[in-house]
């Protein structure tokens, strides 16, 4: 009886998952179709996934005739530094906000949130003027600082929320065992927050990996182009190289998916808290 019920639940689980996977994949399959369509068409009156005259020439073009790998490399550097910064600063700030009482804590928490509330378009001009004055135009330093500041609010809040679920008693026993505050943090709590660290890392990475507007204003030197800027160069008014654009869009998502697969181990291990808590 119980097994039968479980079987039904499992079947429904799969049906639901399969249905959503199809919904998630269908538009992306359309993008794939654009990428293998022979002559730069965004749309078609045909719904076939494999178009007539399908070709992989766009992918070859991407890697041979375009500075695609340079953009990948540039984006990897920028996203890498932003990810490390995001994880390092958010994990520490989130910890303090979760664990300590101090003057200005509430203000900081709300303050962090407010940085996300102002429409971004309006911030562009003053940000640009500021970066000129600091001599950070056409430099990765400028863009890395901006991206880190963009990614941090979510990351800090998210880390704080996760630390909140970890019992304080763990640090207390660590302190009794002779750890100081910093050791208690990075030896005991930090590893337990692995799922949140994964989310922070993914989010920071993605912020830098996909951002276009600020990059377009700050990076004018084509040698410094990040992926979104590079992709945009396939586009033009009314005559976009859609095939290349679609192909590049799919290739660009591969590192994101790869990162997710690698980090998944810590995202869903389920070993961390369950085993120590309770």
């Amino acid at each position, binding site marked *: 009886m119980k097994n039968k019920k479980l079987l039904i639940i*499992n079947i429904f689980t*799969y049906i639901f998952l399969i249905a*959503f*996977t199809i919904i*998630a994949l*269908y*538009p992306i399959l*359309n993008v794939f179709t*654009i990428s293998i369509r022979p002559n730069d068409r*965004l*749309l078609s*009156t045909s719904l076939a996934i494999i178009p007539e005259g399908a070709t992989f020439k766009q992918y070859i073009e991407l890697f041979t005739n375009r500075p695609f790998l340079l953009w990948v490399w540039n984006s990897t550097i920028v996203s890498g530094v932003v990810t490390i910064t995001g994880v390092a*600063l958010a994990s520490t*700030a989130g910890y303090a906000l979760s664990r300590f*009482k101090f*003057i200005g*804590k*509430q203000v*900081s*928490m*709300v303050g962090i*949130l*407010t*940085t996300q*509330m*102002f*429409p971004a378009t*309006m911030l562009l001009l*003053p940000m640009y003027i500021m970066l000129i004055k600091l*001599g950070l135009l056409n430099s990765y330093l400028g863009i*890395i600082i901006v991206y880190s*500041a963009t990614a*941090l609010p*979510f990351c800090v*809040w998210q880390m704080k*929320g*996760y630390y*909140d*679920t970890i*019992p304080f008693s763990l640090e207390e026993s660590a302190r009794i065992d002779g750890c100081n505050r*910093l*050791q208690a943090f990075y030896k005991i709590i930090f590893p337990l927050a692995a*799922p*949140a660290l994964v989310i922070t890392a993914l989010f920071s990475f993605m912020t830098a990996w*996909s951002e276009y507007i600020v990059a*377009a*204003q700050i990076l*004018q*030197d084509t040698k410094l182009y990040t992926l979104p800027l590079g992709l*945009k160069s396939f586009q*033009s008014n*009314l*005559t976009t190289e859609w095939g290349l654009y679609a192909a590049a*869009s799919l290739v660009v998502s591969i590192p994101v*998916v790869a990162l*997710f697969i690698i980090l998944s181990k810590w*995202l869903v291990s*389920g070993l961390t*808290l*369950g085993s120590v808590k309770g």
Partner: protein
Amino acid sequence: MQKHISDHIKLLITFSVLFFFAGCTQINRENEIVIWHNMRPEEKTVLQRQLDEFMQQNPGINVIELYKETEEMRSGYIIAAVGGQGPDLIYGPSDQVGPFAEMEIIKPLDEIFSSDYIYNFNENALIYSDGKLWQLADKLGNHLTLVYNKALVPVPPKTDKELIEIGKRTTLDLNNNGRIDQYGLVWNYTEPYFFIPFLTGFGGWVLDSLNNPTLNTPEMIKALKFIQDLRDKHKIIPSEADYDIADILFKEGKSGMMINGDWSWSSYGNAGIDYGISMLPLMTETGLYARPMVAPKGYSINVNVEDEKLPVVVELMKFLLSPEKQLETSLEVKTFPSRKEVYENPKLLEDEILIHSKKQIDEGIPLPIVTEMRAIWDAMRPSYQAVLGGAITPERAARNMQRDAELKIRELRETYENPVMEVVIQTGMILIVLLLLYIIRKSIVAFLKNLKRDAFAYYLVLPAMLIMLAVIFYPFVYNLIISLSNMSLAHIHDWSIVGFIQYVKVFTEPQFYEVFLKTIIWTLTNITFHVVLGVALALLLNRKLPGTTLFRTLLILPWAVPQYIVALTWRGMFNYEYGSINLILVKYLSLSPVEWLKSPVEAFAAVIITNIWLGFPFMMIIALGALQSIPQELYEAADIDGAKWYHKLKNITIPLIKPVMIPAITLGIVWTFNNLNVIWLVSNAGEPSDKTHILVSYVYKAAFNLYRYGYAAAFSFVIFLILLAFGLLFLRKTKATESVY
């Protein structure tokens, strides 16, 4: 303790070094000329070749060309040039000269080029404004013509009657399934620029000699009816066509005729269509030709180019504008040159496409370069689309267009002066700061007293806070000040504080409340679906059945693929005739097809559906992480007590994932509230009739695009305050700022 702090300092130093290296990419720009342009790929190839030649002739000089999309080039250039930077040369359509000249961010060229030199150009290629020359064009054109598929239409129509007759003959249901498979005529008829030829054909125009709009005229009404008739009475054009749909129908040979500009022609040849170019038809009623706008494209010089560099920049411009280079470009990319010397060249006179192109240019009207044109387009679009959607009559549309255009021009030109306000605001701000200091005086004392005790916490929080503050503080204060100013087209450099008038304007804007309501619907619907779907999928994936790893990876794809292309793909999927969504509705669910992009409610639904799809994977990832913090023992204990699944969900899962989900939901709401991109892409900037706007897209279109910076800043500040109020309320309710322990 001391030792560990020094560990931390080491870590910080490591980061600083990393930053430093990442920043070490400054370049030397003295011998470098940068051109921004909006050329399409073929033109760009020619430009690149010509620049290489120039660099070979002038060793030591490096010229860099950078492509920018027209709108983005315009706004990006304004920001850069106002900031004292930007490219040396800017290449684009003549109408960008209007605002640039008014803002004084390009140099007058008559002081740089001799009148003898200027004399060599076709007069339409010299872009004057207020008696000064601002741009030298190398291409005339950007004009629409009739393009026809020779296989379907052997002889192109000369008059509107012939156009309709040929159109009817070639609009066919080839397989007799009740659906039309081939249209007589297609074009991007929902966009005003593509409607202008018919307005002029009936004798109408958009502006009078004093730049006042002339939209409410009998000619306008006739032209609107003409387009309506093409679709509803003669049925020779598709019921829904934007640029991409029209383009694809013609490329696939599913349309006999097309109206499109010189930029597109070669792509039809590449698609294997044997095409011809012909003049737009003569309108029999008036005896006038349907005349398109003709917009030269050319170079302007940045006002920030220094005197030492100017000669080289001029040299380069003369090189690119030389008759040889123009001829080369014309023959290759079929654009029409601007130098008179080239016109008699036999090679030019032999080219069939260029001959017909020239005829159309001669029957064209120059695109007005005044900034008012932007108000005209923005005023025409919604009413024009409303006529096509059947919402209003042509007569009413003409009246609305005129009213909106007058209003927008007034807004564009409006300016306030209030010299007293500057002092008032300054004093007010100082008082507010003092008041704040007074209010928090106890906190400051407590802060200093407990500094030693709390040092560890501050030490952990400070780096993150500093980096956020560094980036946001100046822009934020800047916007606060601008929102109290009259900064606009006329006052881009010399703006002054005028008080709260811009805020008054925001709240008296009749559309504000309607758009606000839509923003709330947009935000709530999106976030509800994101969270419910995200958590539901995370719960299922967390059951760790075989294969969940694969599902998990596939399900995050909507988050991983760049938004731009998928958003446009979704737009294609929503197409009435060819989109897959209607196909599924009709074929598999036996429902009637939905006019997704033509009616306001459906279009808004389409945008929301797209955004739900884009956003659920992220919530799913967060929920997956959150679920890991729940000890398994709790569920086991509940099982022993015989708890049902919904009890477990309500009493264990939801309370325990709340600390992690609340920050994500709060920020998710803030982000969705301000999500410009998806609206912009899927609804094509608020179509139909500007009915699919949320507050940010509205401010972008109605204020930022009309250079009303003071108003836009005030509007943005109102958005900010709305979100702040919401944030504080939400946080109080959920107690998310408190620690759990």
